[in-house]
Every structure is written in structure tokens, then in C-alpha cells.
């Protein structure tokens, strides 16, 4: 038994020593070498047609344009997330990115252990103190946030302008502040162009399962369409697949989220509120490359091209030119700061 403990400690000591050699070697490798980036994807990994694919696309263009050296880790459930980040940090990556708000706590903890490594968190969730003030992330962590409410505002206006029934719908996933941002912006956009429109808002649930429940999404959407709603915006992950299915079944319209979801129900997707996860990822990598990386809060909105809505050859037929012009007008007003979009309901 004592032998076993001794061996374990010896191995541990060797292990730790090796970690240090890697890091020191790296530190001397410096300037001229391309920036080394480690990215830990959220559950699902590549092929999720959303967040992970967005981060991958951003990293891919960084590889091509900046010559960055990028390594991905696709964790399974739960605990591997922290282990993945730790592994990359211990390997001496210049930048470690966690994709998804779920990485927030792990990033904050690791950043303290590796003060010389840059960290970035997509959708990093900022905590607030007792007085409601935002607690900034650690100095070496970039919190990459999106002003989803701005994009939601535009699709809300769009939805209200194309429907004739004065009823517009919203299906959220889990009932949490992150999704309330979508709801708040959407609602404000609707009220801007149609003050007497009724907004029907429903959430699929109060647990993370609510993002993965297309059966529930379909029933929620069917009940809204039956009440006379013509357009539903979903911010509900794969629960939204059920919304699209209901749109097909009732021949109504739905609005996609995060990425262009036109392929999920062609002809029934009015537009999609897209998040530029690729833009944010690329931005973080290029900052590290240019030695301009600083911790803090980076917010991507309409102005930065971090959010937007899809208007292309595939959905042009669903959006009259006058409507498009009005929405573009609103977009310019938001960019100019003349319209303040609420982010809480």
C-alpha cells in the first residue's frame, strides 16, 4: 500500500514536472511562431449546424488567413468539459476558447490557474453582484457576448409586417435570462411596427431538456398557429425543429435562430436570426495573433456584424420589398443608436 502511494506520488511529480517543461518550452518559442489555439466545443461537437459549426468556421478562416494552429476537443457529457480546457491550457496554448455559456465557471476558474494564457468564452455568462452590478471576468478572459436582442428586434418587426392577423408568436426553449433577451428584443420589434399586435410567448420548459424537445415544440407551435398566429420565432435549439414541423403541417411561417435554418423547412422559414459565432471566434484569434488581446467584455451586435437576419435568394419571395426596406431602416437606426433595444423583459 505504501509502495503504491509512493509510486503514485512519483508519477504525479513527474507529470507536473513535464507540464512545466512544456509550458516553459512554449514560452521561449514565442513571437514568430503562429498562434496556437485550443477550442473546446459544446456537447454535440461539429455538425450541430449552430454554435459549434460557427466556432469551427471562424477557426477555419483563422487557419487560412492567419496561419493559426488550432486544435479542437469535442467533449462528451459533463465533466470532460473542464478537463478539455485544462488539457489545452496545460499544453501551453496561447488562446483557449470554450464554446457555449456552459463553460463560464470552468473558464473563470482555469483563468486564475493559468494567468498567462488567454481565454475566451462564447456566450460567457456574466454574474452580477448583490447590487446588480456586472462582475467583470478575470483579466485574461474575453467574454464574447452577442446582442441577440438587436437581431430579434429586426425579425420581430419583420414577422409583424408580413403577418395579417395581428398575432405573432414566440417559442423559447428553457425559461432563462439568455432566452428572455431574444423575447424582449422580438417583442420590442413587433410593438415598434405594430403597437396593437398581440405577442404570444411560450417556453418549452424549465430544464435543459427544453432545448431538445421537438415534440413539445410542435405542440406549442400548433396551438399558437391554431389561435391565428402566422409567424413564430423560435429560440429553442432542436425544440425549434418541432416548430418548423408545425409550420409545414399548417402551411404557416417560422423564423430560425443562430444559423440559417432555411433547409429545415424550405418555403416555411421566413428568415433566421443569425449569431456571428464565427466572427467572434475569428476576432478573438486575430487579437491574440496581433498581441492586442485583452480580457473583458466583447459585445457583438448589428454594428459589429455579430447578429443579423437572413435575406437571400431563398427567402426573398416571402419578404415584400417594402417590408425589407422598413426593416433595413430600423437596422440603421439601431446601429446609429437612435433605437435602444431592451434586453430584459
Amino acid at each position, binding site marked *: 500500500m505504501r509502495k503504491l502511494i509512493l509510486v503514485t506520488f512519483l508519477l504525479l511529480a513527474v507529470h507536473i514536472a513535464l507540464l512545466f517543461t512544456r509550458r516553459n518550452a512554449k514560452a521561449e518559442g514565442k513571437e514568430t511562431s503562429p498562434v496556437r489555439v485550443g477550442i473546446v466545443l459544446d456537447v454535440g461537437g461539429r455538425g450541430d449546424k449552430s454554435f459549434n459549426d460557427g466556432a469551427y468556421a471562424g477557426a477555419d478562416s483563422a487557419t487560412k488567413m492567419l496561419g493559426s494552429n488550432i486544435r479542437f476537443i469535442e467533449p462528451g457529457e459533463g465533466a470532460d468539459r473542464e478537463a478539455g480546457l485544462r488539457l489545452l491550457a496545460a499544453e501551453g496554448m496561447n488562446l483557449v476558447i470554450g464554446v457555449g455559456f456552459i463553460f463560464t465557471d470552468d473558464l473563470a476558474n482555469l483563468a486564475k490557474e493559468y494567468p498567462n494564457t488567454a481565454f475566451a468564452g462564447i456566450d460567457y455568462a456574466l454574474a452580477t453582484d448583490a447590487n446588480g452590478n456586472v462582475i467583470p471576468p478575470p483579466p485574461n478572459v474575453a467574454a464574447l457576448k452577442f446582442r441577440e436582442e438587436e437581431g430579434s428586434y429586426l425579425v420581430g418587426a419583420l414577422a409583424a409586417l408580413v403577418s395579417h392577423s395581428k398575432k405573432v408568436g414566440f417559442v423559447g426553449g428553457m425559461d432563462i435570462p439568455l432566452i428572455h433577451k431574444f423575447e424582449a428584443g422580438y417583442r420590442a420589434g413587433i410593438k415598434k411596427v405594430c403597437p396593437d399586435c398581440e405577442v404570444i410567448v411560450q417556453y418549452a420548459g424549465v430544464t435543459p431538456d427544453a432545448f431538445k424537445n421537438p415534440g413539445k415544440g410542435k405542440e406549442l407551435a400548433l396551438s399558437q398557429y391554431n389561435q391565428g398566429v402566422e409567424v413564430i420565432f423560435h429560440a429553442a435549439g432542436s425544440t425549434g425543429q418541432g416548430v418548423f*414541423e408545425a409550420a409545414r403541417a399548417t402551411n404557416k411561417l417560422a423564423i430560425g435562430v443562430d444559423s440559417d435554418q432555411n433547409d429545415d423547412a424550405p418555403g416555411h422559414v421566413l428568415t433566421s436570426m443569425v449569431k456571428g459565432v464565427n466572427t467572434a471566434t475569428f476576432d478573438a484569434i486575430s487579437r491574440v495573433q496581433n498581441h492586442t488581446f485583452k480580457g473583458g467584455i466583447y459585445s457583438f451586435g448589428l454594428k459589429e456584424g455579430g447578429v443579423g437576419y437572413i435575406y437571400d435568394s431563398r427567402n426573398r419571395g416571402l419578404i415584400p420589398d417594402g417590408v425589407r426596406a422598413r426593416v433595413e431602416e430600423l437596422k440603421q437606426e439601431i446601429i446609429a443608436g437612435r433605437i435602444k433595444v431592451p434586453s430584459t423583459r
Partner: protein
Amino acid sequence: MNPISFLTQMIRIAVPYLFAASGGVVAERAGIVSLTLEGFMLSGAFAAVLGTNYSGSPWVGVLCGILGGLIFSLIHAVATIRYRADQVVVGVAINLLAIGVTRFFLKLFFASSSNSPRVAGFGGNINVAGFDNPLLWLGIIVAPVMAFVIYKTPFGLRVRAVGEHPDAAESVGVSVTRVRYVAVAISGMLAALGGVYLALDQHQFTDQMTAGRGFIAISAVIFGRWDPIRAALACLLFAAAETLQIQLQGSHAIPSQFIEMIPYALTIIALAGVVGRAVPPAALGKVED
């Protein structure tokens, strides 16, 4: 609120529960804990989409889905009956395995970690509110059929015997092992049909699309005191609560947290013996030597 739309929506929501709870009743009456329903449903849903995608026929999908549930239930049966592993532990493992396996094959066959392409399905005539789906009708009759099987057939008698007193059953020449294998297999196939219904109603598979419905079904089994008809009524009750929440939400009449709590709260109440004692089959979960 329109009573017709309420009823039709309630039944559509209840169908996956009805299949899975009927499966759960059979396995538990034979003495095998049914924590696995979620995993059976998920594997059934995936196999159905796979089969439908490559054959173009939802009926082939149904058969594949049943086969998918059967495979997972046999893994469960071999581990718990042949190797006498702890049924709760294996049950949790089966559910995790189903998540991993379906995700793995989703990537392998469809190069996506979120959803499959659209496949054929049943029905689609919105004017009949989903009632042109044969699986929906099957879901409505499955509980009475299982009640008949359990109470009126020799096989049902054996199932009840091995769940209550396996030694006595063995002493009169009933093969406890064989009865349990068959019961678990039936539960796997029935629960899988619940998943098949979900997937074909959506015309696609999405990662973890069963979203905890298997656990609601287990709640229904316990709240229904291991009786197929009472379990089915529990399923309808849970579905009615969900429908009420869907149709009243927006008016904020009932907090959704409260509705989501109902199945589990009622299960605890049932187990605590507040409304009549819920007595599980005597040999449930016992590992015989």
C-alpha cells in the same frame, strides 16, 4: 379554450407515455426495474428514422424502431437476468448508452450531431389533428391490450408470479428466467414504439429527442400502482396537465414550473401512501441467488 383541440392535443401528447408506461408495467410486474424506458424510446426513435430514411417507408421504420428497442432491452435483460447486475445501475447505464449510441450513429449516417434529414412519416392532414396516424390509434389501445395480457392470459399469470414470488413460480415449473426475458423484451419493443411515434410525427430524429418522457412514463407506472389501465389513466392525467399548460401559457394562469413538477410530485405522493398504498411487485429489483 376549445374542448376538441384540448382532447386531441392531450391524446397526441399522451401517446408516447402510453406506449412506454405499458412497457414499464410488463417489465416491473415481472420483477425488473424499468428505469430504462427513456433509453428504449430513444433507440426506437433513432432506429425508426434510420429505417424510414433508407427504405422510404414509415412501416419499415416502425419495424426497425421495434428492433432497436428490442436490442437495447436484450442488453438490459442479459445484464440483469443472466449476470444479475443491479437493475437500477444497469438502467441508468442503458439510458446513457442510448444517448451515446444514437449520437454516434447520427454522426456516422447523417454527418450531424443535432438532427437527421427529414424522412417520411404518417398522416399530415392537419384537419384531423394527427388522428390519421395509425401509431396514435395503436397507442390508445395498447393499455387495454396489456391489461388483458397481464390479467387474462397464462403468460400474464406467469409474469405476475415471477414478479411476486419467483421461488414459488420456479417450484411449479415456470422458468423465471425465460418469463423475465420475454417481459423485458416486450417492454423494450413497446417503449420503442413511443419513440417511433415521436420521431415519425416529427419526420426526423433529433439528439435526445425523448427529453425525459421515459421518466414521466415510469412515474405513471408507479402512480398507476403497476396496473396497465391505471398507469394509462396516469399518462392521460400528466398529458392533460401539459396540454393545459400549453393552452393557458401566455395568460400566465399556471406557472410552467408547477406543471412540470406534477408527474414527479404525484409519484412521491403515491409512494408515500397518501392516496392508497402503492405496493410494488414483491420481487421488484431483487437479485435472486
